């Protein structure tokens, strides 16, 4: 019996997942240390009266930052490295579609971001005395948020001219996620609103907040739909126009 399309995708995904053999520690450490450190710092300098008001925003922003560290920064650098060393040629010459290759890479890095997101979620909730009763509500946000953010990571990885610039661009994107995600909207200058609007992390943070309030519900659906839309848009861009061809 021959291996069909779905079987090939599963093999591609398993290939990507083998990175966990050597890289699970860096993925976990990189994605959890910085967001947790920032949450801890803000908690330490915060007036106790403000904890309730800003805790949900800070923890939600930190969880999304944890996802971004893997899904944007590490993924963008990985893709750029594959391009620079021409290792991407291996995939490009297999009888599998570009969509399958991009989807497998994207899904694998979304998975890699999960442990960091959970660690930050649980520790952040404990730090700011938030409810974990609706922890399950984090899962759809993680799934669609990491899909959208990994899409951005792949976009940067394919679009940047080299690995160094991919690192720089992805770190800039991560900084935007950090400031625009952790700071409450009211504290952000109005001229940054367009940037917030085009960053998928904004909608991931919005979708996370009701869960920490112990009140997840239909209000999240709009943000989740937007995340799915961002993911689909990035996916379409990288499987077509941005697929590498050194002309």
């Amino acid at each position, binding site marked *: *019996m*021959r*291996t069909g399309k779905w*079987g*090939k995708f599963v*093999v*591609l995904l*398993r*290939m*990507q997942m*083998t*990175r966990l*053999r*050597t*890289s699970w520690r860096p993925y976990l450490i990189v994605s959890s240390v910085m967001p947790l450190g920032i949450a801890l710092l803000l908690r330490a300098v915060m007036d106790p009266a403000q904890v309730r008001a800003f805790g949900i925003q800070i923890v939600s922003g930190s969880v999304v930052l944890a996802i971004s560290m893997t899904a944007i920064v590490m993924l963008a650098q990985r893709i750029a490295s*594959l391009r620079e*060393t*021409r*290792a*991407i*040629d*291996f*995939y*490009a*010459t*297999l*009888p*599998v*579609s*570009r969509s399958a290759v991009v989807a497998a890479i994207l899904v694998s890095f979304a998975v890699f971001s999960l442990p960091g997101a959970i660690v930050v979620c649980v520790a952040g909730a404990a730090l700011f005395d938030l409810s974990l009763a609706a922890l399950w509500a984090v899962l759809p946000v993680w799934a669609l948020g990491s899909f959208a953010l990994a899409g951005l990571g792949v976009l940067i990885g394919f679009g940047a001219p080299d690995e160094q610039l991919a690192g720089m661009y992805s770190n800039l994107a991560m900084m935007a996620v950090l400031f625009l995600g952790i700071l409450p909207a009211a504290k952000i200058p109005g001229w940054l609103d367009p940037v917030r609007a085009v960053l998928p992390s904004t909608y991931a943070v919005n979708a996370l907040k009701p869960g920490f309030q112990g009140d997840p519900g239909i209000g999240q659906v709009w943000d989740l739909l937007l995340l799915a839309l961002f993911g689909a848009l990035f996916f379409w861009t990288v499987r077509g126009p941005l697929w590498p*061809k*050194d*002309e």
Partner: protein
Amino acid sequence: MRHAPAYEVRNLRKTYRSPQVVANDGITFSVDAGTSFGLLGPNGAGKTTLVRQLVGLLTPTSGDIRLFGEPLPAKGSELRIGRHVAYLPQGALALGELKVGEAFRWTAMMRGCGKATARSESAELIETLELGEVVDRQLRKLSGGQRRLTQIGMTLVGRLPVVILDEPTTDVDPALRARIWSLLAERARSGTAVILVTHDVAEAEHVLDRVAILERGTITTMGTPAELKARLAHRTRVEVVLAERSTATTASVAELLGADTRVDGRRVSAWVPADEALVTLEKVMTSIGADSLEDVRLITPTLEDVYLELSGHRLEEQA
């Protein structure tokens, strides 16, 4: 369309935009199923650019490439190329965390083989390439040679009708190199079209049915190794090595051998007309004295000689 040549290339031209370089110009050749074809030439001759167009990684500026009669590139041609052509690039491995066995099996499955076929083909290739001891080792932990062998195995697994290998035996020891050559020759005999890019003239001579020599993006000559060597059949190289204690000088030997003499330490050689080779050698031995000579040889042209004659390059200097 399987009766059509595996590849037909006509008037292919590739110009890079930045910096503007004509990498291939007027390239025309065809490769039939069941034959091996080689692209031989120095670095920068345009060999890799050419094969990257054959596998759809680059788009030609102009010209025509046909794979089993169907034009490339065309809509959906990436998948079609992948179904027919296995390509070994010069570049790095995509996934160092894969184990050798997985790399073979999963590549075979990606080429459409079922699990059982993938397993049996992988086992066979792993044995042939002597990778049994490292079958459970991650690729990043292999030596350079073992990694290259694994890449070759990943190219051959799945038995696609065309294999293209870009300098496959770099970093491979001579014994295994010979084994790879025989594996490629066997594949060609069993109906696969083998296209080989190489610097190595010995490789070209051992493996290939036909050779094209590329120089600055164009094919300067093409034919079977025997046909190419026949171009120099009218000449024989006389090679003389002076004994360590010889009183004769290399200059005096060179003078006896005539024009275009090459001197390398105590070794002096020159091309002479084939029918004059014995007479020339006799003249040297008589003049210098047999006791002053450590070694004398009459050498018929090799493919390397043809290459040097045609291009004026020394391959090993280019590598």
